């Protein structure tokens, strides 16, 4: 008799002891840090009240890593950092050393052994947050890792230098659920027609759940060829693809018609004016693998205009608030259309209700 296979019953282990995974210098000075300095792009120096100093070298990672790459990263951390490293929310790897003499050899190994760029600190373009894409999501209309690679190749100099008015965060999303999130510049996929329903395969789905998830109540039950299925009211449908997440038989993706749109001005921090959502800048860019050149051109236009007229500490959204959307569209060359005017809930709160106009 063979032993019965365990079915992954949750063990409820709880969160691991985080102090076991922090660099010893971080444990020693936990809560007792005094200030930090940016030594150069990609290198931070944190000073504790005790006088202890910790240097952090930040390297861009491709986010999805093979076991071999993970081992190489760990080898670098073993050699220089007493075996400790950490990942930032933007999937950069941070290596920490206590001796300033170790910084340059560490950077050399990051370049030579890992082939990763060092940067992403201060007023740079940090690593791009992206969704799962073709790698293993069941919903993507476009790729994520591939388009990020193409973009980062173009933006490399802005990752390893700190030469922008303020930091710029970029995200990409491969469907309209937009897991990529808010960012200074976001590249998101747009669908252009209602889902195509495979009525013969709808029985694999939980139909009531699929009806319930529609944000505009456009889905209703229907019997097709004697089988339980669903119908979409096309006038109501806004092509969000929420139903596709619930039910794979409602196909929203279409390689012939899906396009990409660029959104600008998202900001997470509560600094200055508080957090903000991003707004539509341009749309209808072709979903054009493997290099998405049209997207790269559009991002470059936004960054060039921002570099030219952005002031210190102004994020892209704050810069546009100051110069106005009229000038933003003039500088980037994007056309302002009726599709830029909001039609969803609270659309009216986005209209200009003053006589403030730039002439």
């Amino acid at each position, binding site marked *: 008799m063979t032993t019965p296979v365990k079915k992954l019953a949750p063990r409820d282990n*709880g969160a691991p002891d985080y102090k076991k995974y922090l660099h010893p210098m971080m444990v020693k000075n936990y809560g007792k840090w005094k200030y930090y300095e940016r030594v150069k792009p990609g290198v931070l120096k944190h000073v504790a009240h005790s006088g202890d100093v910790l240097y952090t070298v930040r390297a861009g990672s491709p986010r999805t890593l093979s076991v071999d790459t993970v081992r190489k990263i760990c080898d670098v951390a073993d050699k220089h950092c007493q075996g400790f490293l950490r990942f930032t929310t933007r999937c950069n790897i941070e290596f920490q050393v206590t001796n300033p003499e170790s910084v340059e050899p560490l950077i050399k190994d990051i370049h030579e052994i890992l082939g990763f760029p060092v940067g992403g600190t201060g007023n740079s373009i940090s690593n791009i947050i992206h969704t799962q894409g073709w790698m293993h999501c069941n919903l993507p209309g476009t790729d994520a890792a591939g388009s990020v690679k193409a973009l980062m190749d173009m933006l490399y100099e802005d990752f390893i230098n700190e030469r922008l008015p303020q930091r710029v965060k970029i995200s990409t999303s491969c469907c309209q659920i937009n897991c990529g999130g808010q960012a200074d510049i976001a590249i998101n996929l747009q669908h252009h027609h209602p889902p195509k329903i495979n009525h013969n395969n709808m029985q694999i789905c939980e139909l009531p759940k699929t009806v319930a998830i529609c944000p505009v109540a456009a889905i209703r039950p229907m019997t097709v060829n004697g089988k339980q299925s669903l119908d979409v009211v096309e006038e109501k449908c806004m092509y969000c693809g929420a139903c596709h997440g619930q039910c794979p038989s409602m196909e929203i993706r279409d390689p012939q018609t899906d396009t990409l749109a660029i959104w600008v001005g998202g900001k997470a921090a509560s600094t200055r004016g508080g957090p903000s*959502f991003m707004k539509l800048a341009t749309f209808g860019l072709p979903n054009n693998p493997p290099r998405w050149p049209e997207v790269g051109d559009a991002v470059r236009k936004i960054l060039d205009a921002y570099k030219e007229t952005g002031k210190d500490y102004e994020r892209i959204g704050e810069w546009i608030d100051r110069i106005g959307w009229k000038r933003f569209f003039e500088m980037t060359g994007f056309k302002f259309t009726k599709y830029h005017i909001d039609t969803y809930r609270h659309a009216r709160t986005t209209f200009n209700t003053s006589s403030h106009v730039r002439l």
Partner: protein
Amino acid sequence: MTGDILMLGSTNESTYAAGEALMENGWDIGGSGGALRTLACCIGPARCEMSCYDTLEVTKRITDTYISQLHRPELPYKFKFKLSGCANDCANSIQRSDMPVMGTWRDNIQIDHEEVGKFIAEKGESYVIDNVVTRCPTKCISLKNKKIVIDDKDCVHCMHCINVMHKALAPGKDKGVTILLGGKRTLKIGDTMGSVIVPFMKLDTDEDMEKLIALISRIWEFWGENGMEHERVGEFIERVGLGTFLENIGIEPDPQMVKHPRTNSYIKFEEYTAPLMGGEPKGPPSVVNKEIEEKETTY
């Protein structure tokens, strides 16, 4: 962004073996569906002088308290916590979590006048005016005789001046957290940000932690009982109204919860409306009446 490790590429059999091996080594697997999601936090006191509370410790405490909810989906929809030590919000909590917990302080910004002098000497007065004084959202900071003067009662703790002059300025000493509720990404009602439900609370002691846990439990109880399938807590608040929500989780309304009071005049004052005028007891608000809901969603 989740802080989870995703391991890709295993077969059905090896997935079970890998899951068992991970759990045997002290790691949990899970955190998807209508459950508590893996918590995320900023680096906090481990390597940041700006962190106003112990984000790592609070993350561990909440995870350990609610580890069962992380593995056994029993909520109307997902619930995410993200914890940031200050308003810089490195954990992206206001936009991306149902319950953002943000570090803050309620006394005065600490000023090191010697460092202020050095900063002005190095950068010049006009740099300080352009990048610190005029960028303050409430205009509570000024430069007088080469000294920084802050009117702290108007400070909204946005961190900007501290970010620019981080050697000269630091958060106050009486630290705590601001708790918000209802952030989520775009699906269904469009993006929502969290909004304030607790303007300030201390989060240092075990008793403070118990208060936070009790608050979370009250929120889950009310939302869990009355939330609809696939309804995030922010969407739920939008449906039932923030006033009703506060009443049911036992929190007093506070002007800090809104940008400004309401502007539309159509109000149902419960005190003036029948049957209360006849002295009859007050029933549950109709928006959370389960019977009505079931009728509406019957398929």
